């Protein structure tokens, strides 16, 4: 039904890397006349292990840039524009025309009337210029390690997160489990950050994060277990392939795709979504950095680009959470291709899988933004009540329902 734009990221990159390295190899061969030992270097450069290693590096770089540069900036822009419209204002409007030098600062062009896509870049540049202040009595090593721990553990999710059936770094048999494990590492970093800064606000924020994120990880994992009972696999690509078919009811195929959310998994879907809102620290559940009472929570003492990292990671987590929900429950990258072009003998789908997947991710992100800017923050005891008294029983019920459907068939 659907086809990816990148059939296999690793293979594509390998062809390119092999081509470039063979040119380098030929150059080394050509210059090895006066220095014969260079021939061995040429053989080494063109050998298969070197090509593979360089290809891996290229693949990781491509995916990291795709996630952080393209998608992170876009999702930040989407959020800031969307909540501005909710609040009856324009929001960010810094654009290329706001640059203060020729040819951008034209006389008749208003400087603040763009789409605002460059605002986040400008903010990032500002944060990089700022001083990194370490509090005097802070535990310096832990204070500096925790932003790295938080950001890198969230980036680890994208190591196995497929953006289509071919666009991924690695495809593990237990990919979903790996993603959930990496996703649940951040509370450790948050607790370290809250403790290390030697500040009462950060301390309270860190322990709030520990209490909340741990109690919401349990229903999240239980909901995935309910899903695995019916799918029988933890491989994200296979989970998506299973959903890429119509629902068959009584022998007739309905015009509804067999996404996991349409069926016994709907309860698990709700539990998983609510847990994910808590895991990504968005407003109904953002008590670790409740800016009303805790100044900025566990991020209070961070300044400069360290603050930028711990602030931007929330959007990374939103991307990861939306992608996970889309893969597990909403059919992943399934969708009609409409037509296929042939460019130099290579078939190119008009609407490839990547587009369908990114569309789902952004629609889910927009839903989270909409939700978080229309409700107040929930208190810590109410959050724990929701987690332990509602979500965990519901997720156990979801496992029961899934098992029952599995037995019935």
């Amino acid at each position, binding site marked *: 039904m659907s086809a990816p734009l990148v059939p296999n990221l690793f293979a594509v990159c390998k062809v390119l890397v092999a081509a470039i390295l063979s040119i380098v190899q030929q150059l080394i061969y050509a210059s090895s006349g006066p220095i014969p030992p260079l021939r061995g270097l040429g053989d080494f450069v063109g050998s298969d292990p070197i090509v593979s290693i360089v290809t891996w590096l290229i693949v990781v770089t491509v995916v990291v840039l795709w996630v952080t540069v393209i998608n992170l900036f876009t999702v930040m822009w989407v959020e800031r524009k969307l909540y501005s419209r909710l609040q009856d204002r324009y929001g960010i409007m810094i654009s290329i025309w706001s640059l203060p030098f020729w040819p951008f600062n034209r006389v008749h062009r208003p400087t603040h009337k763009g789409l605002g896509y460059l605002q986040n870049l400008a903010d990032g540049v500002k944060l990089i210029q700022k001083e990194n202040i370490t509090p005097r009595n802070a535990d310096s090593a832990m204070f500096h390690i925790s932003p790295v721990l938080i950001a890198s553990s969230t980036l680890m999710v994208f190591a196995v997160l497929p953006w289509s059936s071919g666009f991924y770094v690695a495809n593990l048999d237990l990919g979903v489990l790996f993603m959930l494990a990496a996703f649940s590492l951040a509370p450790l970093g948050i607790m370290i950050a809250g403790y290390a800064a030697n500040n009462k606000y950060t301390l309270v924020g860190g322990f709030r994060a520990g209490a909340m994120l741990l109690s919401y990880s349990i229903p999240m994992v239980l909901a995935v277990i309910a899903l695995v009972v019916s799918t029988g696999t933890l491989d994200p690509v296979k989970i998506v392939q299973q959903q890429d078919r119509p629902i068959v009811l009584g022998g007739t195929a309905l015009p509804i795709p067999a996404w996991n959310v349409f069926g016994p998994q709907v309860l698990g879907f709700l539990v998983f979504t609510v847990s994910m809102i808590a895991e990504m620290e968005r407003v109904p559940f*953002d008590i670790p950095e409740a800016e*009303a009472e805790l100044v900025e929570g566990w991020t209070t003492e961070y300044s400069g680009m360290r603050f930028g990292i711990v602030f931007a990671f929330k959007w990374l987590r939103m991307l990861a959470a939306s992608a996970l929900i889309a893969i597990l429950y909403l059919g992943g990258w399934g969708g009609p291709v409409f037509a296929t072009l042939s460019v130099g003998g290579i078939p190119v789908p008009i609407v490839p899988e990547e587009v369908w997947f990114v569309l789902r991710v952004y629609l889910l992100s927009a839903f989270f933004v909409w939700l978080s800017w*229309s409700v107040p923050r929930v208190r810590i005891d109410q959050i724990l009540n929701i987690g332990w008294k509602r979500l965990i029983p519901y997720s156990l019920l979801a496992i029961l329902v899934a098992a029952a459907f599995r037995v019935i068939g």
Partner: protein
Amino acid sequence: MPEFWINMGPQHPMTHGLWNMKVKVDGETITDAKPEIGYLHRGYEKIMEVREFQKNVVLTDRLCYVSSITWSHAYCLAVEKMMGIETPERGQWIRVIALELQRVASHLMWLASYGPDLGLLTGLLWCLRERELFLDLIQLMSGARMNQNYPRVGGVRNDLPENFEAMCKRSIEHFLEKVKNEYPQIFQESKVFRMRTEGVGTISAADAINWGVTGPNLRACGVNVDLRRLDPYETYEEIDFEPQVWHDGGAGDSYARFECRFNELNESCKIILQALEKMPKTGPYRVKPPRRAEGEGYAKTEDSRGEALFFVIGDGDDRPYRVKIRSPVFCTMAATPQLLRGNKLADVVSILGSVDVCVGEMDK
């Protein structure tokens, strides 16, 4: 974890002004609280002794910059009683309109700051948007958005502008539609908002009276005290309005305080519309006060935050011999430890936001 003190202020997003709430917490539960005020003390009562009667209006404007007209009006009323002069009828009606416009603007500022206290920034933007309507009306009337210097001893500074009535009606119609249909969507009808405010920061009616709590905070406990009704000044006795009192039980919590203030938005708009109908269309709006005066003047008015009292003594000079200001927030502050004890740390913000603190008038 042992109990420890957390400073909520003087530089903290929770404080609406420069003051400090020290909170002792056991984990997340508040065991003790101690308000520390005085960071913004400017010695108003002393400064006013060396300035002439009329020039003090500039100072009383700055007692609370979100509710300037009500404070200046209370001062003018006290001085008028001391001098024994009476404002002309049209002047009194203009004062009522100005007071109620200021009350709506002040309550909207409170509602705007109450939203972010609970983590709801959309509320901030929506309320400030509508506050501009009323600031525009006040600007039309007095020439300034804030610190208007509008009430005068013996009346008001200038008459209403030409088409004020039509513009006032248009703005209020627009605003009442928002209050009816738009604000309840993020406040009253929001389940999370109810969870955060109901049953939080409770105080009984007897305790509230003993601590000297007044205004909407006292009416939220079910006590029907509104000086506009009980001890009418200006032309309030000719106006038909209902003091907003919480009747439904479970009284004295944050939600009751919110609801009383929210309903006062409606009620004040009704008062303005009635005043526009009933006021004489022409006539003097101001009398010339005597330059020197001797005697005592005492005025109490229903400020946006409670009962504002002014006591002025003149000794025959052209400036007051002594001025005493009674700020409602100053008295309410004394009751805050009782409101806070036993609640969670996050409720400090939700409770103190619902009390409506204004540090300028508290520290004087």
